[in-house]
């Protein structure tokens, strides 16, 4: 009886420890096999994906523009408040993660200083995307214009050390959507 208790007390934690070790070993092996392929995939398809995204974005921008006539977003205050029939705050955001290839390229750029073009392209595209989402949101909700638009960019991520975890750049836009009685 006491022998059984001894094994239960010492054995079960030991077993769990071994299982934990086995789990992480398998994970480590699988990850180190898959990582180079994912890295290469990201490096090879990165720029073509970005171009595709850009093309789609331009098409979407044209669609909303043809629907509304002019750009709905503005940073203005309201000129004629008596026209407004409805208003409400809307917000939208996007989190983009630069691929590890892009992070590597950026790190090399940073050695020499100057403009870090990979990040600039990515963030510029993210900003256009978030503006477009705000426009689409406004038109979906039936707002005629969005006033007082603001942007906010921040770094979020789950860094633990240099390579572990993800790195995300959040771009966030918000504004007040308004419906006009007699849009002029």
């Amino acid at each position, binding site marked *: 009886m006491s022998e059984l208790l001894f094994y239960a007390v010492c054995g079960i934690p030991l077993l769990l420890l071994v299982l934990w070790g086995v789990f992480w070993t398998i994970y480590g092996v699988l990850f180190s096999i898959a990582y180079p392929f994912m890295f290469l995939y990201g490096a090879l398809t990165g720029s073509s994906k970005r171009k595709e995204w850009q093309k789609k974005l331009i098409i979407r921008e044209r669609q909303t523009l043809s629907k509304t006539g002019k750009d709905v977003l503005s940073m203005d205050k309201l000129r004629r408040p008596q026209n407004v029939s409805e208003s409400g*705050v809307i*917000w939208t*955001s996007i989190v*983009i*993660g630069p691929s590890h290839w892009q992070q590597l390229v950026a790190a090399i750029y940073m050695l020499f200083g100057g403009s870090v073009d990979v990040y600039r392209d990515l963030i510029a595209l993210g900003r256009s995307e978030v503006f477009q989402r705000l426009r689409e949101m406004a038109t979906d909700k039936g707002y005629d214009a969005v006033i007082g638009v603001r942007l906010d960019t921040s770094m979020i991520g789950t860094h633990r050390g240099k390579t572990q975890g*993800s790195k995300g750049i959040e771009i966030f836009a*918000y504004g*007040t959507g308004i419906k006009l009685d007699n849009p002029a």
Partner: protein
Amino acid sequence: MPSTVDGIYVVSTETIPGLIIKDQLGVVSGSTVRAKNVVRDFTQMLKNIVGGELPQYTELLVESRNEAFTRMVADAKARGANGVVNLRFATSAVSPGAAELFCYGTAVVTE
């Protein structure tokens, strides 16, 4: 008339269209610190190697902002305001894997 959220007019501009501001009751704010679970963090980490949007984090931040916004509205309500003007948002990464979303504005009473 502007539409309300929970009985409160919320705008990101200095004035509420169509209404006259009678009194202001100070700055109201709402904040939240949220994190996704380990599994999501892992899938997003894999997505990050390849690059592109991280949809889980986008979703997380929008959810968290909704929460912060609701808290701010509750704060404004508790002060007896019926409007919030000059709404602003702020984000900070307090620790790896968690983000603080903060939302503030001026509580006002309208006529």
